[in-house]
């Protein structure tokens, strides 16, 4: 499997704006280390899941890859080319191939655009259609591909006239119309009803199978990650703590953080009640990242060493990476 997207030591730091008084007295401006050295590769036609608590930097990672947020450091390669070095025209063609689907289909669609305009806009912005008939046909095809049948009837509707599931399909159609090769799906189903989720997820997996689209699937729901993805990366406070194939990460987690997350996945009709390890406290403030292993203040098995040394992120087993002092391998 050749890598479509290769992320190398990506960092996104936000500088909190210092007030006048603060800068006058020469205090350091606080830096939010949203993403702090993330590396992974995404193969062609692969679904990689970025999972983690809110505030762990999953969404920022996704947006930084698409340069919707400018990375502070690190490299992003797309099909072997450095995304951060793209000029305007290169960036434009990159954005035709790499799309994003947002979490909230109520907010990510302009309330004053009709369905037709929403789906046709990417074509117009990129000057891809020269006749109205061609445009209409491509819009209709994208809507059908996204599972919205009888598209012509929807053309003049506004997003608020559609249901949540239909809206998310519409957002997907707005991406599909450009024939993307790579989609960042930022919690695409977390705002949807449980009954609608399965349909949207199946649609995304089907599109992967038919068109070979690669996904970076961002979610906080591990059971969902397990269901759809080929590989799972667990993020904690701006770093990947564990990455491996979906089955091994869920069934045989290495990192104590992953173990804690996996132990609380609800299992219907589970016979054996496994011991749940509940984490205490909350994710620390990314402005003041704990020294040593970032997870040590909440880790149930932390050693004194964890407070001082940053654990290396290494390949423990073939294809299974983790960053923890306690893993022998």
């Amino acid at each position, binding site marked *: 499997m050749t890598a479509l997207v290769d992320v190398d030591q990506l960092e996104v730091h936000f500088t909190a704006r210092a007030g006048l008084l603060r800068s006058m007295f020469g205090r350091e401006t606080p830096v939010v280390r949203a993403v702090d050295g993330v590396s992974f590769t995404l193969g062609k036609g692969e679904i990689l899941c970025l999972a983690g608590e809110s505030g762990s930097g999953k969404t920022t990672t996704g947006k930084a890859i698409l340069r919707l947020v400018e990375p502070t450091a690190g490299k992003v390669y797309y099909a072997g080319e450095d995304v951060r070095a793209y000029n305007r025209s290169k960036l434009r063609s990159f954005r035709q191939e790499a799309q994003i689907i947002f979490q909230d289909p109520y907010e990510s669609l*302009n309330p004053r655009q009709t369905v037709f305009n929403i789906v046709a806009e990417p074509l*117009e*912005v990129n000057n891809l259609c020269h006749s109205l008939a061609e445009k*209409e046909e491509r819009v209709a095809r994208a809507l059908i591909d996204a599972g919205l049948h009888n598209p012509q009837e929807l*053309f*003049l509707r506004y997003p608020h006239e559609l249901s949540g599931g239909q809206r998310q399909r519409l957002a997907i159609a707005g991406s599909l119309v450009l024939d993307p090769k790579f989609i960042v799906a930022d919690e695409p189903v977390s705002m949807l009803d449980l009954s609608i989720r399965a349909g949207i997820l199946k649609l995304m997996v089907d599109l992967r199978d038919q068109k070979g689209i690669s996904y970076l699937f961002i979610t906080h729901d591990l059971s969902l990650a397990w269901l759809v993805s080929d590989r799972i990366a667990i993020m904690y406070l701006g770093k990947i703590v564990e990455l491996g194939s979906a089955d091994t990460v869920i069934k045989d987690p290495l990192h104590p953080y992953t173990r804690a997350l996996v132990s609380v996945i609800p299992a219907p009709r589970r016979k054996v009640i496994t011991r749940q390890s509940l984490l205490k406290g909350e994710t620390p403030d990314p402005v003041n990242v704990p020294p040593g292993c970032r997870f040590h203040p909440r880790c149930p098995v932390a050693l004194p060493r964890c407070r001082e040394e940053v654990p290396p992120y290494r390949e423990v087993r073939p294809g299974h990476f983790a960053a923890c002092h306690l893993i022998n391998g």
Partner: protein
Amino acid sequence: MLQIVNRKDRFILLKKNLASFWGIYRRNTMGIAGLVILVCFALMALIGPYFVTYTSAAEGIEKVLQPPSAEHWLGTDDLGRDVFAGVVIGSRISLVVGLAATVISMVIGAVIGIVSGYYGKTLDALLMRLTDIFLVIPWLPLMLVMAALLGPSLGNIILVIGITGWAGTARIIRSQTLSIKERPYVERARAIGSGDLHIMLHHILPNVFPLIFANTILVAAVAILSETTLSFLGMGDPTSISWGMMLHFAFEMGAVAFGAWWWLIPPGICVVLVVLGFTFIGYALDEVLNPKLRRR
């Protein structure tokens, strides 16, 4: 909003939008009252001047400064002209000047507000300081100085009122732009490769438009009042009759001393009514377009 399938669909969409808007608007008593007032004045300005004659009496001192009678509904002025005819003819100039100045104000205000809010940083700081200057300068002396410099003509009056009236709008539009540019659909637009101009025209403008529209109505009220003020103070074009100009002449020729109330009061009442009409509509629109204020 700006890209539409074809002409027929565009018409269907427009009808749909107007119908839903009208459905809410017509339940607003204040708004309907304002609309009725303005429609009356608009009709008066459009067709009224074809039915009245506003000429000086050729002879006879007895035709001058007559109180209201069956022949002259609102009496006559110092030159024997019919005051009612003056009010009808003056409505045209007053409304045209007010509306044209409003358009200028709104365009300047919307462009500065959107650009300032969208780009932020240094450009925002510069434009907002400029806006602050226009906000704090007492507008009447500024208008008087500008009108005096440019000279009395209808075009200049429009320009002067337009240039002095945009600052409040720019502030309001900017704050709304700041909120809209952070919405996910703007980010989505960027993700599909849209440029800044495209985003401002297709995503920001349609979403601040209701605000621009509601604000236009309120600015129009002020613009008409400004025109009256400028004309009354003698900065208007003396050859075109507006309500302000009538008041100006009435005052100059000593209508008060003669006790010719019929010469002073009608143009004044017209100005008040038009301003009231615009204000009513403005408040009604605020209520219609801002669901939080809507009564259940």
